[in-house]
């Protein structure tokens, strides 16, 4: 199965490992990601002001491009998933017809068909956990993993309809499939502080450390996420504090590890908090 794929700006630079492991693990899991031939930034945040049509142009152009490739568009970055899905919903909203026309005229790319924005995790779930379990070559061996979803994967719930917004479980199910032990904790969908890390770092650090501490309290040895900013914030807040460190992985790195990717393919050198000693200690490398 081949899916049109939108990597987004961060996956081409600071989160290369999220992207590369995602593509390689997909091949092992039995599907293929086909990058859109020409794409632009989604805008990274969704603007909710009712009159701000300019902010819709970027994501709508991506959706139009995707419609020329297929019916579904797969994303990996939580922010891209959030922005594209919300822009798509607004484009089809009742009462938005006139604005829709103005945006489409400006975008000047034909829509070949309606597009559905899906996340990589949803593709995996559709393939079925049993099918993925059969392809595991290196079990996580009971590793206690906290799946951290953050805000962007689950809210707003009425638009994303991704999972239970208060207790999402898709990533937990994946970790269990790979042989890990999902850790139940309180702040699965709590904010990491997001982009406040740029101009209000103390606020962002407080948010991130609260998530990490709670996961540790419930016994987590490692944390997985699908958002580049969550990954960065959770790690860098710990590094700034300088005490006990819990490694934070992209779920595609752990998926790739379990499906037998080579260590050199897993992109651990791009993790700020070097996870290699931890994985060796756990017998996973």
């Amino acid at each position, binding site marked *: 199965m081949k899916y049109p794929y939108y990597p*987004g*700006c*961060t996956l081409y*630079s*600071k*989160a290369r490992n999220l992207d590369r492991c995602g593509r390689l693990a997909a091949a092992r899991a039995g599907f293929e990601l086909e990058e859109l031939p020409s794409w632009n*930034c989604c*805008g*990274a*945040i969704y*603007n*909710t*002001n*009712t*009159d*701000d049509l300019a*902010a819709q142009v970027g994501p709508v152009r991506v959706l139009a491009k995707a419609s020329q490739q297929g019916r579904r568009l797969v994303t990996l*970055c939580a*922010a891209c998933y959030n922005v594209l899905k919300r822009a798509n919903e607004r484009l089809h909203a009742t009462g938005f017809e006139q604005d829709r026309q103005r945006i489409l005229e400006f975008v000047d790319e034909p829509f070949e068909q309606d597009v559905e924005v899906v996340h990589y995790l949803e593709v995996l779930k559709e393939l079925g956990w049993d099918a993925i379990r059969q392809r595991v070559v290196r079990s996580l061996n009971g590793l206690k993993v906290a799946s951290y979803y953050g*805000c962007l994967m689950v*809210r*707003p*719930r009425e638009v994303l309809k991704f999972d239970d*917004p208060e207790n999402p479980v898709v990533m937990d199910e994946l970790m269990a499939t790979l042989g890990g032990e999902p850790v139940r904790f309180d702040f699965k969908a*709590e*904010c990491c*502080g*997001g*982009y*406040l*890390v*740029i*101009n*209000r770092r103390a*606020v*962002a650090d*407080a*948010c991130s450390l*609260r998530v990490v501490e709670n996961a540790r309290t419930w016994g987590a040895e490692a944390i997985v996420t699908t958002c*580049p*900013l969550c990954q*960065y914030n959770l790690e*860098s807040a710990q590094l700034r504090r300088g005490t006990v460190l819990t490694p934070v992985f992209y779920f595609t790195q752990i998926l790739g590890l379990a499906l037998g990717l080579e260590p050199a393919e897993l992109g651990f050198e791009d993790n*700020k908090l070097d996870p290699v000693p931890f994985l060796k200690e756990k017998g996973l490398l």
Partner: protein
Amino acid sequence: MSSQDNSQLVSQIEELSGQRVSDCYQCGCCTAGCPVGELMDPPPSRAIRLLQLGRAQELLASEGIWVCASCLVCGTRCPRNVDYAKIAEACRALILRAKRSQVDPDVVDDQDLQDVPQQAFIASFRKFSV
């Protein structure tokens, strides 16, 4: 600022955000769930109360609207379907559209440029600068 100007501001905020402040019955669920509620002055429920009382200018002058990271917990848990994140976004827009940026892309720390994901820069500049 006269009360007439203030009530005009409240209408503008309601229109931009698509929210009706009179829908809120001040249960405080939003503030209780807000991850930065204790660092946000005023927190969501009190910010909405200011608008209900027609004190829009006070809210626009506050720090609180700039501490919100739009995580959307408040609106998700609101029993009255009021989305404070949209209200805060509208308040920020009114200030930003008067050309008053809160972050300056020209003074980003070099180390941050190397470390922080692009996603954060784009989001921050789009949220907090003109």
